[in-house]
């Protein structure tokens, strides 16, 4: 059985866990290719116009996998624990896919995380319990699943810690530094985010991803910018990242796919609360690629370099 993993959405947060889990079980799996124009166009055709850019990309990836796998990997991610919830879209993908492809009825491999347990889902629970619920679908014993999960979890946590350490090193290092605040699936997307990163790098900027923070620390830090009613885990971590890095960077870039629900509010918090750094707000709808954005990136880096020179 080949499992298909869309290279979109939570893949960027959980992909290391997913891949190592499947690999250690010896399952065949395939990750969809990098986002390109065709994938985005396909996804846009499948989704309502007013859906967010990243969900269009996600659905494009799902579509690209249909002929290449026996089942799609679509977890139900209501939350990651007690520290907030996820955007409702990550609960909706499962039902959206089964209804968009109703005729075709692709098989879906799912684990459902719902720490709060309020959803009376069959397999709700913490992440490990949720993974165990895949035992039957994968034809494995509970023990095999548990061992594979624990090993993969450790690898993914080590990998993340390593990336955080790298980001910290960049923040402590030399050069003109920019904190980029956005969902990881926007920042690292080959079509949406990476061209922007590259453009900044071409101007000699050092980039720090606000997602790369100690997550437990970030859950405390975000309260310096917001009260505790901020619901989303990822948004809290991003604000925590802003708190963590703001004094060590020269400017901040907000990268948002139109019309992202959480970002519509979180960006406003940053704009209102962070007044000592230049902020560039890049809102993307996937329409015109890098054209137009490039000049804004250039003039922003100009400001930062002058700013920096003046201060030093």
């Amino acid at each position, binding site marked *: 059985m080949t499992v298909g993993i869309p290279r979109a959405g939570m893949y960027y947060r959980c992909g290391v866990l997913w891949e190592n889990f499947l690999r250690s079980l010896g399952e065949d799996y395939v990750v969809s290719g990098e986002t390109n124009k065709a994938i985005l166009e396909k996804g846009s055709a499948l989704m309502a116009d007013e859906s967010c850019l990243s969900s269009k990309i996600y659905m494009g990836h799902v579509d690209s996998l249909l002929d290449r796998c026996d089942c799609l990997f679509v977890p139900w991610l209501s939350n990651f624990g007690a520290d907030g919830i996820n955007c409702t879209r990550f609960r909706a993908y499962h039902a959206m896919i089964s209804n968009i492809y109703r005729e075709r009825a692709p098989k879906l491999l799912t684990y459902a995380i719902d720490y709060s347990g309020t959803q009376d889902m069959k397999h709700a629970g913490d992440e490990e319990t949720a993974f165990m619920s895949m035992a039957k679908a994968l034809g494995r014993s509970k023990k095999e699943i548990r061992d594979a999960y624990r090993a993969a979890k450790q690898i993914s946590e080590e990998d993340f810690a390593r990336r955080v350490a790298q980001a910290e090193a960049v923040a402590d290092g030399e050069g003109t530094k920019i904190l980029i605040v956005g969902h990881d699936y926007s920042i690292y997307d080959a079509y949406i985010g990476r061209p922007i990163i590259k453009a900044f790098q071409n101007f000699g900027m050092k980039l720090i991803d606000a997602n790369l923070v100690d997550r437990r620390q970030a859950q405390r830090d975000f309260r310096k910018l917001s009260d505790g*009613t901020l619901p989303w885990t990822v948004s809290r971590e991003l604000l925590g990242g802003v708190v963590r890095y703001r004094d060590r960077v020269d400017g901040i870039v907000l990268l948002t796919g139109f019309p992202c629900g959480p970002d*519509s*509010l979180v960006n406003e918090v940053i704009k209102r609360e962070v007044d000592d750094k230049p902020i560039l707000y890049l809102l993307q709808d996937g329409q015109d690629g890098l054209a137009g954005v490039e000049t804004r990136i250039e003039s922003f880096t100009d400001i930062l370099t002058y700013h920096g020179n003046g201060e030093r």
Partner: protein
Amino acid sequence: MKKKKQNEPKRNVSFSQFGSYNLLFEYFITHGLEQNYVRPPEITKRTMELGNRNSPDFVCSPFKFTLGCFLEAIEAGADTIVQVGGVVACRLKYYGSMQKKIIEDLGYDIRFVNLAEASREDPRSFLALFRKINPDFSLVKILRTGITVVAMLEALDRVQLTVSKNAGFELRDGDFDREFRRFCGRLLKSPNDPISVYRIYRETKKNMRAIPTDVPEHPLRIAVIGEYYTVMDDYSSHNIEKKMAKYGMRVERWMNVSHTLLHYSAPKRRKIIRDYVQYDMGVTTTSNVGFALECAKKGFDGIIQLKSFGCTPEIDAMPVLRSISSDYDIPILFFSFDCQNADTGIETRLEAFYDMIRLKKEAQLKSGAPERAAAAI
């Protein structure tokens, strides 16, 4: 108790427009918390502009509506603002925090009471919020008024349902609306006990039954579903229910405050929609999809979904609704409203929808397809 209150000036409390529910809030503030209530001015273009101008980009429109209302209420003398969002795990939960920030940044010095800070698991957290409005509140009065207000809520929603279902068939334009307004006025003046509320309710129902109507043998029955705020607030939905009534549609809407708060079993609805949704989609989607499916099974003539532009959970429900629509051959119309919608576009789409379902119905009746009788009032 009384003594202390003489030195504490009463606060002027306000709340945003939200359908007809403001009157419940007004009653609770004046009778339960014994403060003054500032009615937010009727929503106008200006309210919208105020809200729009001061809101973040592309935030969902209930945010803009409520912010606009708050700002106008402050101009009208409110010094305390209550935001009730927060029972829902969506952007709504963060409305209050953001709006407080915006209002403060505009330089207003007000007290902002954010219900999102309370937790349903901990009743004491609500008392802390009440204390923000009136530090010397009387628990007895709050409980007593609470009971009355719950009775009012039930009555209000039932009467509203009667209006939705029947306004399309009234012989004299505006009869139901007039009776409804009278009912609201009487509730506000009602003595503080559920029996008085019930009496008013009974009389209103009687009056409404006496309104001359002409219900065709096979009226068009339409299920209205959608996002919480827009579905319940006439201004936000461009009075769509009234427009539907003009076409003689029998509007059935399950979603209202009493149903969702007091009479809703999510596990039950999840079971009903199992063929379409195996994993809960969040917020109001389960209840909406469930109601749409029930109506489709009952042989309704159409479904209309109302939501604000970009509303995440309701957009996600669309593919599911499409499946139901094709399985049961029931047409569905999607509306997304933002602050700039023109009325004419809405009219045109509604009219086209009406023409379609009317023709479909006529063909159906001619061919003698079985049709279940419409429920009476």
